[in-house]
């Protein structure tokens, strides 16, 4: 069995985002990490392999920097890494199209994605890839059970969980709660250094969605400190009623 896990390498969540003079995201000084939701995808791929055997392929699309993310996945225990290489902007549809082609070539019928990249926050690449492959898909998954061809999963919804049934082939997008991602061991890190990341140049078709410009959110004026003990509560309640008109 070939298991695919599609990962992204994104600015650390602790990053402050700044814009360049021409209103693009200023990438200077940003440090990068594996997209936090993709760690759950990698962990679930490893667990799936432990259960059924097989081989795991981590796939990332983008520039050379994404190789660092793939290396981290290899260090966690993933078997192979593939970089779908391009420079510049591709919209999620474009990325999904290329990922789908690669997954088809590999012939993997279980595919994991993080539920969302915490950079552009689209949350659609996994679902688009599934549709383009004509695979089933369950998104935002917090519990997964695969028995033969049958898949049962829990997905997070507002106010609870949905229990979803489907079948292979399937794309699962992973949410916190699904598992506890393991740390890379020293042995894993050493072994990963010997692995070769396959590089495949991809080409972009026209983007369906295009960024026009970026902005920073309005900075709030510093608010009022009403006091340092319970005597400030009267004032707070008054403001919530008269100014904020919430009560």
């Amino acid at each position, binding site marked *: 069995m070939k298991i695919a896990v599609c990962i992204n390498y994104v600015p650390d969540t602790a990053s402050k985002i700044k814009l360049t003079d021409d209103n693009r995201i200023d990438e200077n000084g940003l440090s990068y990490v594996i997209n936090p939701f993709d760690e759950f995808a990698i962990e679930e791929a490893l667990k799936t392999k432990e259960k059924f055997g097989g081989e795991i392929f981590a796939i990332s699309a983008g520039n050379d920097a994404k190789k660092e993310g793939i290396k981290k996945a290899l260090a966690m225990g993933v078997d192979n890494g593939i970089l779908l290489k391009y420079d510049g902007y591709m919209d999620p549809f474009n990325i999904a199209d290329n990922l789908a082609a690669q997954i088809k070539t590999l012939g993997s019928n279980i595919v994991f994605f993080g539920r969302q990249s915490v950079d552009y926050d*689209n949350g659609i690449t996994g679902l688009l890839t599934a549709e383009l492959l004509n695979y089933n898909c369950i998104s935002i998954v917090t519990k997964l059970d695969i028995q033969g061809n049958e898949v049962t999963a829990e997905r997070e919804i507002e106010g609870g969980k949905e229990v979803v*049934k489907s079948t292979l082939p399937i794309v699962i997008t992973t949410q916190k709660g699904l598992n506890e991602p393991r740390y890379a061991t020293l042995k894993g890190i050493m072994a990963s250094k010997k692995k070769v990341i396959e590089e495949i140049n991809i080409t972009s078709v026209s983007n369906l969605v295009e960024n026009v410009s970026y902005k920073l959110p309005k900075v709030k004026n510093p608010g009022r400190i009403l*006091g340092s003990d319970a005597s400030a509560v009267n004032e707070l309640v008054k403001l919530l009623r008269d100014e904020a008109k919430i009560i």
Partner: protein
Amino acid sequence: MNSKILVILEQRENKIKKSSLETIEAAKLFASRLNYNFEALVIGNGIENLDILQNTGLSTLTEYKNSDLELYSPSAYKKIIVEHFNKLSGEIILFANTSFGKDLAPRIAASLKAGCITDCTNFDFSDGNIICSKPIFAGKAISELKVNSPLKVFTIRTNVFKIVPAECKLDIITEHFEAPDLTTKVIEINKQDSKLDVAEADIIISGGRGLKSPENFALVEKLAQAFGAAVGASRAVVDAGWRPHSEQVGQTGKTVSPSLYIACGISGAIQHLAGMSSSKYIVAINKDADAPIFSVADYGITGDVFEILPVLTEQINKLKQ
């Protein structure tokens, strides 16, 4: 005239959700700026609260009905919506950015080869283009985007579009839908204990490590009860196992924009601020006057949560009597 805009309403237990009414507001904006008609579609098994759609500005609703369709089935819902939209020769589909809309919108976009933008907070219409704003990096920046394809799918962030009544007669067409494709299907919903979810609440009371122990969250819960609010949490207390993950607010939890957000014993780490700083009013209660949470708070009390929360709860309860 055929509707060019289709709004997908969402039901839970055959009741249409409030976020769907906000999506109708977005459709009204599109319709007026583009001079298009809009209509709505809902899939379920006999909607019980159709009256909430009266005088929203919606004039046509198609209800697809089948006993297997009360619970969500991505495979079935996708086919119904795509077929309906093709019959209309529509151009734009709108969803609320809920777990339902987030799941369904990209599937439909893929079937239609339509550009898809999720979590939209604003639309500008200039020179015949639709420019959509969407928070990225969990709100640390805003991306302004344009869809190049003729067909477009958007999901609308909840709690952003205000519901404005508009006198209007509503026609409802009921279609009994036979033999849906149930390849992927929800078989049951496990509800969480707390009634209100942070993602849908108008008021959120959040607690952090400053509460010191899981038991002390009773203080937060009581205040939430007084306000009729949802309980939220920082990642620190979720990771510690004090609170369920569904309550986590922030970059790797839920992004929220309620009318009021009260942060109790939360320091305001950048990942937390990212998820809640677009709330309309923010109150911070924290012992440490230098805590970053105060930089986004409209009102702050630099004091002890154990002293302040009971007094605040009592006063709110009194006011509500």
